[in-house]
C-alpha cells in the first residue's frame, strides 16, 4: 500500500527538525529552569523566552515586549476578545465584541462568552467573495464597541481580508482591533499591515512548532485584561509559568516562516491552482469556493454538488488522502460550514464542501495522487447520496436552521 497523502496542513503540521532541535535543550540539559527563578537555571530559561519573543516579534512586525505566549490560537483569541471586553467594562465602556460571521469557532465562541458576561456580540456579514461588508463595519464602529475581530486569512476558504483597511477604520474610530492571523503567518506577508492591529493571534502548530503554544501580540497593554489569574508572569496579561520549550519552538518556527514566506507562497500557489484545474477537468461541476477572491496560497476549498462532505472524507481517507471539511468536527456533525453559509453558498452545495490544504512538505506527487483518487470517490459518494435520499434530509436540516421549509410529518412539530 502506498503511503498516505497528507493534505490537511491547515489543521496541523509536523514539527520541523530545526524547531525540534531548538526546543530540546529547554526540556532537558541546562535550560529546563523556571524563567521566573533568580538563579542561573532560571536565567537560562528566561533567555530562551526572550529570544523567542524577539523572533516572534520580528516575524509579525511587532516589538518583543508585545509578545504574550499562550497555550495556542484558541486561548489567544479568547484573551484578545474576552480580555478586551473586560478591559472595556473596567473603563466604563460598552462590553461589545464585533466579529465577522466567518471567524474561527474560537473567536465566535469568545464573542458569545462576552454575552454571557453581560455584554453583546455583533456579527459582521460578508459578501459572496467572503470579505466583510464595510458598511456594516462602519455601523458597528459607530456604537464604540470594545473590540472588533476580523481574521486575516480564513481557515476554510483561504480568503484574505483587507486587514490594513479594517485596522485603519478601527483606529480612526478609536476601537481596538484584533485579528486572528493563525492561517496568515508564513503564508501571506504579515509585517506591513501587522503594525496597525492592536491585537494579533498566532499559533505554533500551523507552522511547524508543536501543539500547545501560540501567542497574542498585544500592542497596548491597556487593551486587554487577563482572563486567567496567577503569579503575574507575562506582564500580568497571561500569568502562569511559561511553556519555555514551546515558546522557543514558536520563536524558531515563526522566524523560519517569516523568512520562507515568499518562496513557499509562490510554490504552494502553483500546487493549489494545478490541483484545482485538474480536479475541475475530472469533475466538471465542482465548485472552487471564493475562486475570484484574494486567497492565501495553501488552502483549496471545493464543493461537490450532490455529495456529503463526511462521506467524501471517509472515502478519501480509506483511499489514502487526508483532507478536511474545514470545520474540523470529525464526530459527525453534518452542519454545513458557517463560513460558506455566511458567504451565501447554497445549503446543499455547502454540505458537499471539503478543504485541501498544503504545507512546506507538499509535493507534486501529492497533487497527482489526489487528482487520481478524488474523481472515483466523488462518483461513489454521489451514488450513496442518491440511495439515502439526501434531498429529504436537507429540507429538514434547513428547517432546523431557521431558513424556511417545514417538512415535519403531520402532528409532529418541535
Amino acid at each position, binding site marked *: 500500500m502506498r503511503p498516505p497523502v497528507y493534505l490537511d496542513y491547515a489543521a496541523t503540521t509536523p514539527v520541523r527538525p530545526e524547531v525540534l532541535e531548538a526546543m530540546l535543550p529547554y526540556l532537558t540539559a541546562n535550560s529546563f529552569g523556571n524563567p521566573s527563578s533568580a538563579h542561573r537555571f532560571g536565567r537560562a530559561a528566561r533567555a530562551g523566552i526572550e529570544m523567542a519573543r524577539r523572533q516572534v516579534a520580528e516575524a509579525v512586525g511587532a516589538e518583543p515586549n508585545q509578545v504574550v505566549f499562550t497555550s495556542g490560537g484558541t486561548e489567544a483569541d479568547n484573551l484578545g476578545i474576552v480580555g478586551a471586553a473586560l478591559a472595556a467594562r473596567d473603563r466604563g465602556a460598552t462590553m461589545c465584541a464585533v466579529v465577522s460571521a466567518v471567524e474561527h469557532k474560537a473567536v465566535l465562541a469568545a464573542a458569545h462568552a462576552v454575552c454571557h458576561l453581560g455584554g453583546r456580540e455583533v456579527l459582521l456579514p460578508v459578501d459572496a467573495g467572503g470579505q466583510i461588508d464595510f458598511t456594516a463595519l462602519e455601523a458597528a464602529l459607530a456604537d464604540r464597541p470594545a473590540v472588533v475581530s476580523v481574521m486575516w486569512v480564513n481557515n476554510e476558504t483561504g480568503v484574505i481580508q483587507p486587514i490594513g483597511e479594517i485596522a485603519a477604520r478601527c483606529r480612526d474610530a478609536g476601537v481596538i482591533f484584533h485579528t486572528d492571523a493563525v492561517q496568515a503567518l508564513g503564508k501571506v506577508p504579515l509585517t506591513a499591515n501587522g503594525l496597525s492591529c492592536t491585537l494579533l493571534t498566532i499559533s505554533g502548530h500551523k507552522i511547524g512548532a508543536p501543539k500547545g503554544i501560540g501567542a497574542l501580540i498585544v500592542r497596548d497593554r491597556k487593551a486587554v485584561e487577563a482572563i486567567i489569574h496567577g503569579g503575574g508572569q507575562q506582564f500580568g496579561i497571561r500569568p502562569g509559568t511559561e511553556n519555555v520549550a514551546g515558546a522557543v519552538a514558536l520563536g524558531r518556527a515563526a522566524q523560519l516562516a517569516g523568512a520562507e514566506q515568499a518562496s513557499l507562497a509562490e510554490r504552494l500557489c502553483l500546487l493549489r491552482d494545478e490541483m484545482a484545474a485538474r480536479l475541475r477537468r475530472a469533475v466538471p461541476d465542482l465548485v472552487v469556493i471564493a475562486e475570484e477572491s484574494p486567497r492565501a496560497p495553501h488552502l483549496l476549498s471545493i464543493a461537490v454538488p450532490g455529495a456529503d462532505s463526511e462521506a467524501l472524507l*471517509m472515502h478519501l481517507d480509506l483511499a489514502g488522502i487526508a483532507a478536511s471539511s474545514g470545520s474540523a468536527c470529525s*464526530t*459527525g456533525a453534518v452542519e454545513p460550514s458557517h463560513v460558506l453559509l455566511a458567504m451565501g453558498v447554497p445549503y446543499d452545495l455547502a454540505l458537499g464542501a471539503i478543504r485541501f490544504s498544503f504545507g512546506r512538505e507538499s509535493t507534486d506527487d501529492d497533487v497527482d495522487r489526489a487528482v487520481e483518487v478524488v474523481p472515483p470517490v466523488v462518483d461513489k459518494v454521489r451514488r*450513496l447520496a442518491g440511495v439515502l435520499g439526501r434531498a429529504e434530509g436537507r429540507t429538514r436540516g434547513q428547517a432546523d436552521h431557521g431558513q424556511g421549509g417545514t417538512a415535519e410529518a403531520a402532528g409532529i412539530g*418541535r
Partner: protein
Amino acid sequence: MSKRVLVAMSGGVDSSVAAARLVEQGYDVVGATMKLFCYGDDVPDRPCCSLDSINDARDVAHTIGIPHYVLNLEDRFDLHVIQNFVSEYSRGRTPIPCVRCNSFTKFRDLLAHADALDCDYIATGHYAIARNGELYRGSDPTKDQSYFLWGIDQQVVARMLTPVGELSKSETRAYAHRLGLTTADKEESVEICFVPNDDYASVLERHLPADAPALSPGPLVTTTGEVIGKHRGYARYTIGQRKGLPGGFPSARFVVAIRPERREVVIGSVEELAGHSIRLEELNWLAPALEAGDTCLVQIRYRARAVPATVLQIQEEFLTLALTTPVRAITPGQSGVLYRPQGQVLGGGVIG
C-alpha cells in the same frame, strides 16, 4: 484481498469485541459509529464532538488497528425511528424503537454506506447468529437480541456477520479484557438511546404540541365502561402497567387497554390482562412465509418466553395467531417474533 466488513461500533463492549474478532479472523475491517440524534445543539460549548461513546469506539478502533468514522444518520433516524416512536405513542401503542432502528437505520441506511465502501459484509455486536442466510437466537439465553432483528430485509441476513452471537456476555467481557479494550467493563446500556433517564414522556413532550390528546388528561375507565377517575394522558401508560393507578379495588388493577380515539385508559384485573390470540401487522419474513395451520413459537416482548401458537389466518398485511395457553399483556406496538423451536427466527410483525 481479504473481504471487507463495515462494523457498527456503538462504543459498547459488544460491538468492540465484534470488531476485534473480525480483525482476528482476517477481515479488512472498517469501524463506524452512527450518530443518530443530537439534543446538545443548543449548548454551544458542549457539542456532540465530545460524546463519550464516540470517543470509546474510536479508542477501541485505534487499539485494534482499524480505521473508524462517524456516520451521521440523524435525518434518517429521525424520519424512520423517532417520528414513528412519537406517532405510535400518539396512537396509544407502545413502540420498540430498537426494532425500527435495526430494520431501517442499521441494516438499510448503514448498509448503503457499506455498499459505497465496497464492503462485502456488515457486522454488529448483536447477540444473535446469522448463518447461511438464516437468523438464529444468540447462544447466551440471557442476552439473546434476535427479538429486535425480525424486521431486517431477508437478503441482508446473508451479508450479516454476528461475531459475538455465540459468546456469553462474560466471554465477551473476558475477550475485551484480554485485548485491553477500554470498553471491557463498560456498563450495559439498557435505555433507549435517545430517551434520557428512561423518561420517554419527555421525548413525546418535546415532539408533540402541548395540547396533544396523547399527553392530555382523559377518563380512566373499567372494562365495564365505568369512569373511575382521570389519567394524565394515555401515552404515559402502557398495557400491563400497575403503578400509578388508583387503589381501592379488591384485587390488583392493571392497564388492560388504551383507546386513543376516546382518550380512554382501561383498567382491569389480571385475568382481563390475559390474551388468547395475537394479530401481527407490518409483517416481515426471514424464512419462507408461514401458512394458515402452521405452528411456531411466538415471543411478544423482549424478556418474555416464547409460547406455542398456530397461524389462524394470513394475509399480505397481517396474520392472526391462536395461542395454546393465554399470555399476559399483549401490547400493541410491541413486536411479535416468530421462532422455530430450535431458535431460528422465521419473521415477525408489530402487534396490532
